[in-house]
């Protein structure tokens, strides 16, 4: 089918976002790009069912997400193992100054349950509202909210984010501390 130039431009502009979402879902950039390719082909084939002027990004994300889960269902363990190996490889990479946090964070993300990870990404990084995320994940808004909240709590545990730590120097508590010592 043919599509308008503006729709084509919008489609092109959505690719970076689709890739980022795909990487967050499958934790592997090579597989993520295959997923994006599949999404673009599926989207193109059924563009006649897309209402121009409505949310193209949400429509594309929905296609990508469905494609991801249908691949997981088909491939089963194979996919899970690949993800586990990827997480282990990330974890074993030597730390580089300034990149350690991001690497740890990626590993931590792979340890979240799929439903929590996707909810957190959609709301916290892709910029979707809770309502849009609920539509993409085909669940209730309240479900998305609780998944996001559980994902945050779990991440903070995995990353061992604790009060007074991991936030750099805290001048206030440092002052209090030095005073109480003096």
């Amino acid at each position, binding site marked *: 089918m043919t599509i308008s130039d503006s729709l084509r431009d919008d489609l*092109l502009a959505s*690719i970076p976002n689709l890739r980022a979402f795909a990487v967050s879902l499958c934790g592997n950039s090579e597989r993520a*790009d295959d997923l994006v390719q599949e999404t673009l082909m599926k989207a193109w084939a059924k563009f006649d069912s897309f209402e121009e002027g409505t949310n193209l990004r949400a429509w594309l994300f929905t296609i990508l997400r469905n494609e991801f889960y249908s691949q997981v269902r088909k491939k089963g363990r194979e996919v899970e193992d690949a993800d*586990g190996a990827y997480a*282990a490889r990330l974890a074993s990479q030597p730390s580089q100054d300034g990149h350690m946090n991001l690497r740890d964070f990626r590993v931590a993300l*792979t340890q979240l349950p799929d439903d929590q990870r996707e909810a957190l990404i959609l709301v*916290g990084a892709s910029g979707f509202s809770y309502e849009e995320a609920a539509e993409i994940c085909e669940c209730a808004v309240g479900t998305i909210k609780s998944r996001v909240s559980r994902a945050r709590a779990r991440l903070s*545990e995995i990353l061992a984010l604790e009060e007074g730590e991991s936030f750099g120097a805290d001048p206030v508590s440092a002052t209090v501390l030095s005073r109480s010592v003096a």
Partner: protein
Amino acid sequence: MTDHEEKGAGRQLGTGGGGGRRAGKAGEDGDLDPRVQCEIGRQLRAFYDDVISEPVPDRFLELLQQLEKSAGKKC
């Protein structure tokens, strides 16, 4: 999904902290320290923006051209 916790990476990361109080517990809504929420949000966007800032691989541009070409033939 809990089997992820058994993997080495999880254990390694989970023991990263010292003896301070845990700021958040799984399953407790809105209980997280705002600074922890803020830190998670920051890292999440850093991770995501890292991928977004990569140039679009040629394979996608070629794919779109190909799709357009095949559409053109039919019409």
